[in-house]
């Protein structure tokens, strides 16, 4: 457990879980999941949400038992070397989340706002922002994730504008796709939900962590509700063929919004999204930095060095990845790694931890 000074209230887990899940995925998730499930894609959103909730429950089983973060659990169960190696995989995964979010956002800015933008300068500016946040400590990261949910929340009300032009009959007939299609679509949907695994590392920073489980589930629920809301409006607004032609259907939805003083509302949307992706990157960078600290036993005073190194890695990869195809590829690998880690590794680890403790206890009783 961390010192009380640095801990946060349990209800903030709601914002931490929700803000890391919701990111650039919202702009383009419709096309990916409707590719296989069509108008039944909403089932995939609900299915994905439930699956994630189950995993959150499993995570809490594991964390409540150990009262430690993932890195220390690894060390306890597998020893220094193997445990460290497994932790390193997780850190790479969290870093990848940061890279994916940053790169995808820059791509959207490039396509919609500034085609000639200097990617290096722009990423440096964003990363300086992240650096300023992360070096402030976990409380500041939590703060930005709280404000990143509360301040831009108005943006979701703008999705009410397209309702005038929607045909909800597009949702019918329900269940005209096979179970296999819906499962594939659920798997594709997972990318939108990933990131909540950072819970494994900030768990010791929560005051009365057991109480936070409810909030974590609620945070996940809000993510699900927002995805579902946008998806249903998109299904009603576009036809299936149309959606296939839009890379970012959400941004196209905004074109309908009309206010007396503003047109092209998607510009405002993309701009406000800075505040939504910022917690995303901050949490993932903080989680990796914290992980590196624990694995290599680095003193907390060296936080500057570690964050700078991590941010340089982020910067390097952001500049190196060019073009739509590569970004899609990165997305794919990241979500694949995420799926394996979250849905296979975590339950296995929990099972193993319970078995091991049982065996150890039996050994003690025998002795």
């Amino acid at each position, binding site marked *: 457990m961390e010192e009380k000074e640095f801990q*946060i*209230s349990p209800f903030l887990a709601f914002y931490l879980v929700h803000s890391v899940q919701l990111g650039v995925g919202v702009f383009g998730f419709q096309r990916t999941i409707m590719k296989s499930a069509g108008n039944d894609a909403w089932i995939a959103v609900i299915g994905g949400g439930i699956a994630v909730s189950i995993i959150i429950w499993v995570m809490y089983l594991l964390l409540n038992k150990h009262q430690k973060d993932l890195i220390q659990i690894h060390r306890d169960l597998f020893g220094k070397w193997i445990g460290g190696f497994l932790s390193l995989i997780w850190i790479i995964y969290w870093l990848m989340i940061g890279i994916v979010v940053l790169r995808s956002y820059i791509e959207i*800015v490039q396509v919609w*706002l*500034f085609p000639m*933008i200097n990617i290096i300068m*722009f990423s440096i*500016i*964003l990363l300086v*922002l992240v650096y*300023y*946040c992360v070096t*402030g400590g976990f409380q*500041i990261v939590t*703060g*930005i994730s*709280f*404000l990143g949910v509360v*301040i831009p929340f108005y943006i979701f009300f703008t999705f009410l504008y397209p309702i005038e032009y929607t045909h909800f009959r597009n949702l019918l007939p329900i269940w005209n796709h096979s179970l296999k299609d819906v499962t594939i679509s659920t798997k594709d949907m997972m990318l939108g939900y990933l990131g909540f695994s950072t819970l494994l590392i900030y768990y010791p920073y929560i005051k009365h962590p057991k109480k936070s489980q409810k909030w974590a589930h609620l945070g996940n629920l809000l993510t699900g509700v927002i995805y579902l809301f946008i998806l249903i409006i998109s299904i009603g607004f576009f036809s299936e063929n149309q959606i296939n032609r839009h890379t970012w259907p959400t941004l196209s939805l905004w074109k309908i919004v009309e206010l*007396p*003083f*503003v*047109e*092209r509302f998607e*510009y*405002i949307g*993309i*701009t*406000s999204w*800075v*505040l939504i992706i*910022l917690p995303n990157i901050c949490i993932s960078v903080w989680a990796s930095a914290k992980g590196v600290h624990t694995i290599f036993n680095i003193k907390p005073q060296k936080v500057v060095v570690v964050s700078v190194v991590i941010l340089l890695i982020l910067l390097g990869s952001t500049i190196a990845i060019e073009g739509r195809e590569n970004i899609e590829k990165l997305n794919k690998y990241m979500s694949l790694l995420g799926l394996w880690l979250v849905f296979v590794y975590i339950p296995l680890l929990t099972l193993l931890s319970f078995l091991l403790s049982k065996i150890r206890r039996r050994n003690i009783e025998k002795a």
Partner: protein
Amino acid sequence: MKKWRNRRSLFKDKESEIGSPKNTEKDDSLGDLLKQLTLSNDFTQFTYHVNETSLCIGYYTPLIDTEILHRDILPYLKKWESFSSLSSVLPIEEVILTADAATIQENLLKGYIFIFDVNNLKQVCLVKAGVERTRQVSLPEVEFSVVGPKESFVEALDTNINLVRKRLPMPELTIKEMIIGKLSKTRVSVLYIEGIANKENVNTVIQRLSDLDFDQIMDSSYITQLIQDNQNSPFPQLIDTERPDRIASELGEGKVAILVDGAPHGLIGPTTIFEFFYAFEDYYLNWAVASFFRLVRFFAVLFSILVTPLYVAVLTYHYELIPKDLVSTLVTSRSAIPLPPILEAIILELAIELLREAGARLPTKVGQTIGIVGGIVIGTASVEAGLTSNVLLIIVALAALASFTTPVYQMGNTIRLIRFPFLLMAHYLGLIGVAVSFCFLLIHLLRLSSLGRPFLEPFYPVRVQDLKDSLIRLPFSMQSKRPIQEQTEDTMRFNPKKAKEKHDSKRI
């Protein structure tokens, strides 16, 4: 915070070692002291003959009240018998008998008169005859209010404490005084209410003050800059007020106040950013009216920071954001202007800053004229000359006006300053630039603290209870608890049930 304290105390130790031996060497004997004193022309020294003994009397002429000397000291010296009986003869309560040169020197500078027998240098009598010349208590000029008390602090510490104490007639109001400043020897008082104020807050303030090592404290704003948590932030982290009613009320909420001798302002901490947008008049108006004005003020600040950058961003990069009808207005006003929006905006913003600065430096009457002349003539002329557009002129003037709505002067300055980084970022990255600067601002505010308490409270960390007196002010009957921010020892201000009761018979 710990680091901060260590740094301060280290600093202090080193300095005091260097400073102290010099002083003791200089005045080791009375003779040397006298020699040193007579070097200054405003030091008066004469001999006075009483019953065959000659007494030497000396003082700094500007520091003492000659009337006291003539009326209450010289006549009574005739009845003088022995040196030790002086204190019972003189009708003055503060008479010190000493032989220590350092004490004599120190007290002379506080307005004491020394008297000693020429033949006996072993005992010196010090009599208090100081005079304090300050101005009368007058109207508050920075935080003027239409309703409510119109007293403001003056430059004398004792008068200021009197203004506070008469509003809080209770023995629990505790005052801790200390002397800060190697040269200025300024008296600084820390005020708090025992049993309400959090001990930790009080100790933090006292510790930071006593660890200070500085030569001259000329005003309370020196103290703010020296003891606030982040000294590099443009945001002040202690509230600066000239209203004794505000200090008294915030002391009652459990805060700690600092009064400095020679400063017509008091400091209050711990505070939050939202308190910088409270005018104390808010508490003198009905809660609905007060809440409305608070919201107006808050949106004025947001408007003031964001509007010019948004103009620059939109006109540099995002023309398509503006609807057709509005664009024609903008285009006609900008069609003759050769400058890019950023230069246009910077020229006008700087012009307004010039006007403000000139107005602030000049005497009131000239200042007003300059304001009007500058505002009307320069504004119209620059539009006619085609240097700036009408629309921007309106926007910049409104933004400047909005920045003046903040009741605390220091915060108004900060707001005008942080507009410029926003402008530059808007020019570089358009709307995204504005959003990025806004995020910087948010993170900066998140990182700030006031006496170790979060600066963005009650929004982060969320404290629903404190929201009742933040952006809006709910009725007094709902304010029965002290803010959580202060972590007070006694959390209840009054009994909420009793406050709502009315004992008059109901009329139909």
